[in-house]
């Protein structure tokens, strides 16, 4: 493996069984009782390598599996198939105890600044907990010093450590959420839509903060977002997901200049541009349910260029010029 690769995700598959109790498994149809399970296929064979120090963004609309991918990488969900490597160590099959050292190196920032901080704990308690847990030998003064340091790093007055989350604004809470991730000095941070719930002017503050912290602390980000326009400037590479599959993975500039996959093109053109009249490529129809994935290319039901091959055969990722990986029969055949 490339020694520069920090985190490697290989053919990751995550399914959720939403059948419920065993009684719910029985279906009555056509005069017969049959037993079946309802399975949501959230992530279907996604592979991404994240190099040390870079930001890889995963972009897609709601239900595309991007948050599930993030949580599976973090070990919050067990993976059904595939592997996750951290610096050549396979971590997806580790026990909780074996995983412990990796917890300090991989951290996560969450979407909802109102739900991601325990409302009954003060900021100081929230930030001390991970330090005490991962460095139990540290004395009280050293812990307090460290808390003050990370609070300063994220731009929150360390004197606020006795305050409760509800006394803070959304942007300030998100800063604390980032600070909590930083307390254990991670190398890799998964950020799950960290700015989606914030106001525009605050979004810019948080994005800038994250970029500064990346520089200072040599962090690697896996950045999850539904908004392509946000990721353009912070990411080195961008992965576009649709219905649990990866459509396209490319250098950020390349993706914004020359989107290859029809879905990426539609997504890009749907971003509202300041002052310009809308001239976007219209997508028709709705996103199919991840319970009954369409056969063949998952995007064919909404794709203008779909033909019979797209409806039957699942496209594989193909590296085209510029290093872009794209999963589309049309691109492969040269008709797009």
């Amino acid at each position, binding site marked *: 493996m490339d020694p520069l690769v920090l985190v490697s995700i290989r053919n990751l598959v995550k399914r959720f069984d939403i059948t419920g109790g065993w009684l719910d498994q029985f279906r009555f149809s056509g005069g017969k009782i049959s037993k079946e399970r309802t399975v949501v296929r959230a992530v279907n064979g996604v592979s991404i390598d994240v190099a040390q120090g870079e930001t890889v963004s995963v972009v897609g*609309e*709601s239900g595309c599996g991007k948050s599930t991918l993030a949580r599976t990488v973090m070990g919050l969900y067990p993976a059904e198939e595939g592997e996750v490597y951290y610096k050549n160590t396979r971590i997806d099959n580790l026990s909780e105890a074996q995983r412990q050292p990796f917890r300090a190196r991989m951290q996560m920032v969450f979407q909802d600044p109102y739900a991601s901080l325990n409302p009954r704990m003060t900021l100081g308690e929230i930030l001390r907990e991970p330090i005490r847990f991962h460095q139990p030998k540290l004395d009280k003064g050293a812990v307090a010093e460290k808390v003050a340091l990370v609070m300063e790093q994220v731009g929150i007055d360390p004197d606020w450590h006795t305050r409760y989350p509800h006394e803070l*604004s959304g*942007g*300030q809470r998100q800063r604390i959420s980032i600070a909590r991730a930083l307390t254990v000095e991670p190398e890799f941070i998964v950020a799950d839509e960290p700015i989606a719930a914030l*106001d*525009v*002017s*605050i*979004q*810019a*503050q948080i*994005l*800038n903060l994250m*970029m500064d912290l990346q520089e200072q602390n040599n962090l690697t980000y896996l950045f999850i977002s*539904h*908004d*392509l*326009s*946000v990721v*353009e*400037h*912070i990411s080195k590479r961008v992965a576009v997901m649709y219905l649990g599959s990866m459509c396209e993975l490319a250098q950020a500039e390349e993706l914004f200049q020359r989107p290859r996959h029809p879905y990426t093109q*539609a*997504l890009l*053109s*749907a*971003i*509202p*541009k*300041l*002052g*310009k*009249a*809308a001239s*976007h490529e*219209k*997508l028709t129809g*709705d*996103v199919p349910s991840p319970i009954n994935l369409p056969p063949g290319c998952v995007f064919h039901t909404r794709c203008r260029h779909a033909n019979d091959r797209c409806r039957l055969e699942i496209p594989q990722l193909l590296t085209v010029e510029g290093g872009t990986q794209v999963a589309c029969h049309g691109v492969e055949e040269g008709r797009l």
Partner: protein
Amino acid sequence: MDKLLTINNLNVDFTLRSTTLRAVNNVSLSVNKSERLGIVGESGAGKSVLGFSIINLISKPGRIASGTVMLQGEEISSYTYEQMRQIRGNRISMIFQDPMMTLNPVLTIGEQMRETINAHASMSAADVDAICLEKLRKVYIPSPEKRLDQYPHEFSGGMRQRIIIAISLLTNPSLIIADEPTTALDVTIQAEIMDLLLELCETEHMGLILITHDLAVVSQVTQRIAVMYAGSIVEQGATEQLITNPQHPYTKGLLGALPQRASRDGRLNQIPGVMPGLAKIPEGCSFRNRCSLAADICLTQPVLEEKTSGSQVACHMVK
């Protein structure tokens, strides 16, 4: 030009315990016939409260403290509840952010549409159904005859928002107030809904007040934009003018913070600090604590007046 809606010096207060907070501060606005106006601001700027106060739907502890709202020359802000009911959903329709909250989950789409018509007019069942189908076709719902008997949960988010738009069209309103109509939707769906709203306003000659936090969305749909900050309008002008040549420091900051305007090295231009809560709005110019241009004169409250650029701006530092 014909004025559709005029708001004069509107103040909306919220009384909590013994303190009174001003959520909408001396707002004057007007919408011409079949004009599209955008109201832009961050959460807490008072833009939704303003939208609700137009149709007098402010619930306790909020109330309209002073000011008037005129619809086609009638002063509707002094109407009784019963008179107002004839305006709401009839001459003015409202579209909200979350389509699932607006639709009643236990009634079919058809029942909800018929109910709206019957509340404002009496006509035969066949006529009512004909109107329902016509409006559903207008919002591009495929095979509307079948869809009438379905429940809201059988539709996707985008479809639900289309149905809500169809319901708002039922009584041929002259003004639609859309409060963050696409915030809960995905980008590709958002684009569709915005196209639809724009198209309908043009074909049906309706006025539109689009309330949103998204400057880019508003710039595509509306002809005029009003920017709200901490309860007041800080800048108002023609869309093109306001987007290309913003005057107020807050508008400039808001536009600069958009990722599309990021500088080469990737850093975004940020406005320092946060918008103050209603209880902590500074005296004088409400933006002065975050403003790089702030001077002594900003301790007095600036008035919204026309500046050389052609926009109305509430700032002492803009000539």
